[in-house]
């Protein structure tokens, strides 16, 4: 099982600064949760915004823009 420090490190995608790594499990979990929520929120918002944004694009341009956006 991953330690609380490992989980935060995993979420951060980088090595923890030593003082952060030395925090207690409860505190580490607070940071991990906050970072995860921020990342998930961003992902969902980006996906929704791209869909909504396309509706503003004139029909004529929608094809090329979609191609750029989704390949």
């Amino acid at each position, binding site marked *: 099982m991953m330690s609380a420090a490992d989980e935060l490190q995993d979420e951060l995608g*980088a090595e923890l600064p030593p003082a*952060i790594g030395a925090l207690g499990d409860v505190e580490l979990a607070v940071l991990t949760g906050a970072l995860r929520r921020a990342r998930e929120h*961003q992902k969902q918002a*980006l996906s929704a915004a*791209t869909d909504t944004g396309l509706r503003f694009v004139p029909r004529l341009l929608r094809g090329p823009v979609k191609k750029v*956006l989704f390949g």
Partner: protein
Amino acid sequence: MSQRLAARAEVLKLARLLAVEPGELEFLQDLPPGELRQFRELATDRLFDAGARALSRVGAAAKLLPSGLVATIAQHAFGPLLCARAAGAVDTDKAIDVAQRLPPEFLADVTVELDPRRVAEIIAKVPESLVVGVAGLLGQRREHVTMGRFIAYVPDHAIAAAIGALDNEAVLRTAFVLEDKDRIDHAIGLLPPHRLPGILRDAARLAIWPEALDLLDHLSVERRGAIADVVAGLDGEIVAGLVAAVHEAGLWDALLPVVRVMSAEPRRRMVSQPAFHDPAVLSDVIRVSAEQGLWRDLVPLIDAVPADVRVIVARIAANLPPALLANVVAQATDSPHTIPTLLGILHDMDAESRARIVGQIDADPLIAQQDETVIGQIVATVSTQRLWDALLPIVRTIGPQTRQRLAEMPAFHDRALLTEIVTAAAEQGLWRELVPLIEAIPEAVRITVAEVATGLEPELLANVLAEAAQAPETLATLLSIVRDMTPNGRTAVAALIDDADKRIADDLVGALNDDQRAHELLEAMPDEIAAAIDRAAQRHGHQSTLARIRAADVDA
């Protein structure tokens, strides 16, 4: 910057990034600010990199569309957070063209979410009018953290214009969370000078002294000095607020350097405020200074407090734990101009505390590490401030080599100075403390000491005689001085012995009786002194003891 203040600023910034209340991250408050910043930057990178591919596609798509349409989509579909994330992927000129078509309120929302490191090029080219509009809105919304992150990337002319759009509180709070603290001095230089007093008054009104002190802490010495005088000129109530805030938040490391660079008169006026005289405050500032290496910054404050408060300072210093005392002595050793203040504190102690403290500290490096010029300056200050009761006990405790070096310095060969030292010793009961210095003084100069002693008022000479009689170890030095005196001087000493009361005679004969060299001492005595000692012995019933000493029949 105080570590504590820096950590507090970092917690605010991280809370903003993660969209949580700062209170939820309070457990980070005591961590090193450098590591907090590192963590925040890693978290920022993580969030920006998470959607990097999708965002770069959004940036590429924006290129295909007219700026007006991109602005509409940005505002109505993407919203501020995603615009901020995508901005770095958009071509700079396009981004600025789009920004100019967006309302300032929306741009302010985007700015809050931006990572300035990723859009530095765009920020540098944003027109001044936009910066001012957005800064004004951010100020109204109290987005100080946001502004603090941006200053390093905004050109000077735009900063100067933006500061004009901010009120005093916003300037202070923004400076406090400024990402690149080295820019504070520069940014404050862009502020019209007439705003500074108002900013400091508002710090007091709003009870945000930590922010104000942090700002002062980051100014260059020249700018800080001028502003420090503004602080010094604040009225008593405001100063009381400042001292209370510093005392409560443990920010002496921020205030003392400000006090140090004040001009002398404003500083004296400021520390004459009762807020600085509270024993609890003094005790705190002295302890913190000793602990944190702030002695050099504390000295101007001590020098400026009234005499009755210096007595409280001395009492507090007398009760410092030995380890902290040692810290102070070490710091004074490195900053020799502060040594007279240290001596002044010893001078203000009661005699018992002074003796105890001098016994506790290792004062040898304090003297040994100073060159002749510095010693000369210290001696001159000791002379002006009459601190011999502090210096002489120290001279007695330092190592013989250091004392020898000291005694060989010309400063101690000056007749006027020797007169002052010998007179002070005679007046203040410091004979015992003076003897080691006299013993170390070169032979040729000891004649001067004898001449100085000859010139002492009879009552002062009597003081020396009485003290020497109680300190057998000093008797030989006294008698050698008497031997070197002029006949007139010796006659005066003989007269004093004739006038000595029974207690002094008892002490004197007792001291001789205890001294194994007493026989030689008496042998070497000029006749008139030996005769006077005989008469005193006879008068007070010590003939047999004296006879035994003369016969060198001393108990071992």
